[in-house]
């Protein structure tokens, strides 16, 4: 369970997140949607204690992130940017993280196998393709077998087979009763993966509802998304461009 309450963050004059409150419940995949620059990544960094909120707070299982006793065994996270050193092998990267939380080394080989990197893990991670880097990030998130997972754009750079694999993985994690928050700009992907969606625009909550409810009210999740975010005019143009070019 993730509880976000009145979270706000401003960078200079720019308000990135503005009084955001929502819950992410266990046993479901919650999609986190919003136009580029709407504050999704900032929100995720604040939940993980990486960025300090100006107001409000986020709790995971009732605790602030910094109070967690074994963070990686409680929360697994994949952030948008690559979060590994290019000079280190994928295996060494995971071993270092495992050591920090008292996770046995055998688990490193387990997650490497799970994400399909067992053969490539000895290579310097800097030579990994975007998709392999993404798989390494997912391996790191799964390392501590956590109850809560936060994944920022997990299918970025993955091929269709990889995208399907992530979808199945997220669904099975939720079926285990875990709490899964996943952001993506691929609305169709979220429609196929998530049970619940939290939609934000300009750092504010626009919708916090089930995918079924949105589908009942709009012809598609995509239509719902554009309708909901239409107030964020300055982002709308950027999105239209993106839709045309990609």
């Amino acid at each position: 369970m993730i509880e976000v309450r009145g979270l706000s963050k401003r960078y200079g004059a720019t308000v990135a997140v503005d009084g955001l409150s929502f819950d992410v419940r266990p046993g479901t995949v919650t999609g986190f949607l919003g136009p580029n620059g709407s504050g999704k990544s900032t929100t995720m960094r604040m939940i993980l204690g990486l960025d300090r909120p100006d107001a409000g707070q986020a709790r995971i299982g009732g605790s602030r992130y910094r109070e967690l006793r074994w963070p990686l065994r409680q929360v697994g996270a994949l952030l948008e940017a690559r979060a590994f050193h290019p000079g280190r092998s994928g295996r060494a990267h995971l071993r270092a993280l495992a050591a920090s939380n008292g996770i046995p080394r055998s688990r490193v080989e387990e997650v490497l196998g799970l994400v399909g990197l067992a053969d490539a893990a000895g290579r310097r991670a800097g030579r990994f393709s975007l998709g392999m880097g993404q798989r390494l990030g997912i391996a790191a998130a799964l390392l501590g077998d956590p109850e809560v997972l936060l994944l920022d754009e997990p299918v970025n750079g993955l091929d269709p087979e990889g995208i399907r694999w992530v979808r199945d993985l997220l669904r099975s994690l939720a079926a285990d009763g875990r709490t899964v928050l996943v952001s993506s700009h691929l609305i169709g992907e979220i429609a196929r993966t998530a049970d619940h969606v939290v939609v934000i625009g300009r750092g504010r909550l626009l919708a916090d509802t089930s995918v079924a409810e949105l589908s009942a009210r709009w012809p598609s999740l995509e239509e719902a998304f554009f309708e909901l975010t239409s107030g964020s005019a300055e982002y709308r143009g950027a999105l239209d461009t993106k839709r045309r070019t990609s």
Partner: protein
Amino acid sequence: MTTTATTDGRYRFSQVARMEWTKLRSLRSTWWVLAVTVAGAIGIAVAVGVNTENAAADLTNNALAGISLGLLLVGVLGVLMMTGEYSSGMIRATLAAIPNRPLVLAAKAAVFGLVALAAGEAASFIAFFAGGAALPDGIPAPALGQPGVLRAVVLGGAGFCLVGLIGLGLGAIIRHTPAAIAVLVVGVYVVAQFVAVLTHALMPYLPIAIVANSLTVVRPTMTDDQVRFLSPWAGLGMLGLYAAVTLGVGAWLLVRRDA
């Protein structure tokens, strides 16, 4: 190093130190830089030894000349221990694994400090013996049993470690590799040149002067206009203070800033 699974308790310094040790040793560049530094110190010791003409000079200090030159490399290595995490994005993985940020920096300082100390002592002792062996006939090599000699050799290695920690602290404060290296070079080398020209009174407090003229000397030395350099132990304290201050400021900023 094996890790045992624990389900209760919470992460402590030992887990964080294991993470940092795994990170440090899995980067080949760390070992290359240290090997080059040690080899360079030995090479310089031999070159200085071979060209020695004055038997009354501080031959121990001469043999350790390469330690002062290697300071830049270990300082840069210290910088990279921290800035490498920022440039790669690894810092977010590190701080998500261990949200206690001062503990992360403390573990980094302990692990890197011990590795730098081991390399520094190895460089210092091997350079001492190599420099002594390279002396021309008729000039007796200094021995570790002579007054002040063992101290000079040991403190040479310690100075090497402390400059590495100053680099680590600068890396935590500045976060960007080129800027942090620039500050290190300017602080350790360039300022020394200016101060040498402008005021000799400050000279004894410069990191490079402390290592070259306080830590690694057998006999007390003076600047050109007869200002005394710090005694070996005062020099060690001063260099330790610099390292503590940079690491302390680095830890304070690490807690306050977004990752």
